[in-house]
């Protein structure tokens, strides 16, 4: 069964550094998302992406965050200057249509020290 794949599985970075989290959505999907989950807490929406542009973003997704789909397969989340509070599990998700379930990747655990 097709999967959403994310790399790396774990990223450790120092505060103030830039990180790029990578995702390969399921190939025929059209809608892409980033969510995050701080340890033991609920899953929070960051951003949705459709037709090569951001559809919606949450208050969490400030100027430090950006997304790209550079080559038609990868979907990346960049955090320009990481903060301690960015430490979380970041999940990429994709779906083929608005009424289909989101398929989530296995996540990237980001640790900011």
């Amino acid at each position, binding site marked *: 069964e097709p999967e959403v794949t994310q790399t790396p599985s774990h990223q450790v970075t120092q505060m103030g550094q830039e990180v790029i989290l990578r995702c390969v959505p399921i190939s025929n999907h059209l809608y892409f998302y980033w969510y995050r989950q701080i340890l033991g807490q609920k899953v929070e929406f960051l951003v949705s992406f459709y037709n090569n542009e951001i559809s919606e973003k949450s208050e969490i997704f400030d100027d430090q965050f950006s997304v790209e789909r550079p080559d038609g397969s990868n979907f990346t989340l960049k955090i320009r200057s990481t903060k301690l509070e960015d430490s979380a599990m970041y999940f990429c998700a994709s779906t083929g249509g*608005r009424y*289909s379930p989101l398929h989530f990747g296995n996540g990237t655990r980001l640790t900011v020290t």
Partner: protein
Amino acid sequence: ELKVEQNPLFLSMQEGKNYTIYCNYSTTSDRLYWYRQDPGKSLESLFVLLSNGAVKQEGRLMASLDTKARLSTLHITAAVHDLSATYFCAVDDSNSGYALNFGKGTSLLVT
């Protein structure tokens, strides 16, 4: 702002027993999802509920949706240990178009 509330947040139940998890949401929506998450793992889609009165069943789990009451339930029948996980409901904020709002999750332990 769409609010999604689940209860209970923690549930310990014996094998063989039945129980229901509740998901209330605050504004109109036409999509509700249930997901399962095992510790340290990703989110696995269980059910997609798209209309008032929708009922879906898979094994020992059954989900239903009442859009008028803004309520979904996830019923567990004759629980087994393998069902131990965290269960999330998520609701589409129809005004937003694409974002899902998740509840805090219900941590289920079957002993």
